[in-house]
């Protein structure tokens, strides 16, 4: 057993940390207010190979591990949670769909390599208005026509949707078959009939672009079908297992970011003649929060380790996602409290972090759905 990061991982963590501090931090408040996605910064960070960290080099990846990827998502999320999810969806939901699929290697490479260094952006279309927690309730349909498929339907809440060059669209071949007929395609931006619908106006992660995607007689070549009919649901679930580790890392990062702001503030802010950090009530609270952050960290690192080592990770990923995101919500809420009135003001960051934290408990399976996953294997 070894709890130490490798020299390589420490170095990678440092690079991500410096990028977050030097590039993401300036302007993060303004971006939150204007809801503008920092395309240039996203591309710049991409040059490090960050988005391809968990993928093998033969597919254009950076040849690292899931653990490496977790460290990078954690670091950027300490400063900018919205950047964290755009990254995470790009890598683990879009990239993960491609890598986990049974598509031929050439197709995998074709659709994975362009995103790993940030030249192209990916998104993941599973959720529909009628299919949220119950992803099987889909109505988008793909019908075979010659060597193409024609897709009709609509997706909603697509992170990176308006930006994406490639989107994995999950759809049914025959509604009567339900998930037994679920398949998945890579649909390219600009394909006739494929359009961006309503762009959501959100509580948090405001710079992440989340939208509806409409599909009206969208013709896609058969080779872009990455999951054959009947394989789509499994692909989506497997990919979400990996995605949840990414969201867990995002939650952990947000919690750590808010914790550090509160910690420094408490040493400076004086009331009743001494720094508020000297109030044992507050100091104990911080001790509890730090302990929770550490336990969350252990859970997400372990889930990533299990994935990297070929062990079953569905349940560890669900547990990590639930733990880290609950810790994110608790720590950010308490951080606002620690800063008092200032905590409620935008320039102190923690109110944004609190708004960002909330979504982590909802997407990629709400925390109730994580309990469904965990309890599902308990009483089999």
């Amino acid at each position, binding site marked *: 057993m070894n709890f130490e990061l490798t*020299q*390589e991982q420490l*170095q*990678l963590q440092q690079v991500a940390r*410096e*990028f977050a501090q030097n590039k993401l931090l300036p302007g993060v408040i303004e971006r939150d207010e204007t809801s503008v996605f920092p395309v240039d910064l996203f591309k710049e960070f991409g040059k490090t190979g960050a988005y391809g960290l968990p993928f093998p*080099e033969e597919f254009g990846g*950076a*040849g690292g591990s899931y653990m*490496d990827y977790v460290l990078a998502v954690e670091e950027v999320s300490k400063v900018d949670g919205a950047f964290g999810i755009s990254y995470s969806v790009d890598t683990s939901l879009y990239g993960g769909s491609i890598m986990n699929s049974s598509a031929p290697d050439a197709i995998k490479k074709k659709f994975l390599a362009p995103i790993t260094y940030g030249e192209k952006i990916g998104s993941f279309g599973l959720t529909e208005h009628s299919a949220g927690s119950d992803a099987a309730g889909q109505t988008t349909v793909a019908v075979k026509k010659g060597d193409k498929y024609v897709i009709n339907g609509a997706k909603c809440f697509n992170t990176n949707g308006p930006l994406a060059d490639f989107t994995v669209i999950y759809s049914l071949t025959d509604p009567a078959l339900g998930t037994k007929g679920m398949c998945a395609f890579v649909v390219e931006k600009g394909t006739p009939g494929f359009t961006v619908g309503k762009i959501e106006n959100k509580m948090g992660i405001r710079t992440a672009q989340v939208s509806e995607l409409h599909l009206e007689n969208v013709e896609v070549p058969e080779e872009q079908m990455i999951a054959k009919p009947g394989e789509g649901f499994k692909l989506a679930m497997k990919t979400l297992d990996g995605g949840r580790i990414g969201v867990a890392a995002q939650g952990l990062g947000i919690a750590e970011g808010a914790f550090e702001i509160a910690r420094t503030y408490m040493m400076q802010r004086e009331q009743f003649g001494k720094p508020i950090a000297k109030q044992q009530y507050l100091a104990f609270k911080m001790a509890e929060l730090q302990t929770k952050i550490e336990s969350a960290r252990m859970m997400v690192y372990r889930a990533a380790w299990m994935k990297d080592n070929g062990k079953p990770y569905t349940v560890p990923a669900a547990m990590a996602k639930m733990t880290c995101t609950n810790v994110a919500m608790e720590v950010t809420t308490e951080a606002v409290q620690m800063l008092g009135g200032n905590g409620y003001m935008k320039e102190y960051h923690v109110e944004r972090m609190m708004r960002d934290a909330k979504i982590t408990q909802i997407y990629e399976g709400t925390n109730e759905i994580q309990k469904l996953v965990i309890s599902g294997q308990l009483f089999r």
Partner: protein
Amino acid sequence: MNIIVCMKQVYDLKDLKLKAGEEFTPQGLDRRVNPFDVFALEAALTVKDQNPQTKVIVLSMGAEHTEKCLIEGLSMGADKAYRLNSSGFLDTVATSRRLAQAIHKIEKAEGMADIIITGIQSTDSGNGIVACMLSRILSRTLVSSAAEISLTGNPSKLEIVKRCPDGFEKTEHDFPLIISATKLNHEVRYPSFPRIRQANQAKINIIEPSPSKKAMSSTELIRIAKPGRRSRNVIVNDDVQAGTQILLRMLQEDNIFTR
């Protein structure tokens, strides 16, 4: 083209808090690459961007732990790394002489260096004279305070934008050259993650020093401590003999001299 970049592993002094008179111990301090040496490497890499045939070699003197800074150099884009084995304190003269010897050895193996770049100073000892000494020992032209370098013309020369107190000075030079780099006019690149992995697996070449008498330290390190602060200015009016004694005693009292 060959470029040798000298990189030093320094203590990260950002969290160092010493009281007046308190002795410095490196305990608990992280080590990092001297930030000015990162500028030196970045400058070298901009030449490599222009001419991809360029071989960038990083050189660091120190014990095994200094390899960490060479790995960082390789991660950013250097092609080869050499560590000049050394431990314990060496003064700047000895350091420069040993580096010069190592540079000769590297040049034997890799070919002449067209450019040697160092950071303008280190953030720990801060002497800022290694580049000057190398220039003297190796008899090569020195250009200090470079904020930007680039190849120009055919046959190529090096254009250097030098940071001066009131602005910048642009000059053109033939090779070989020694340059000291200061804060650059452009950003330092982030290493890519695949390069980080390759760097951690790369071979670090070790050079054992063969120090001549001249390359031994002529200064002995006794202790490093934060000077005590005098709250008032003192003017000593006594004659030279007596005045010197008084000054010496005051410096001893403030822990600047210990014997």
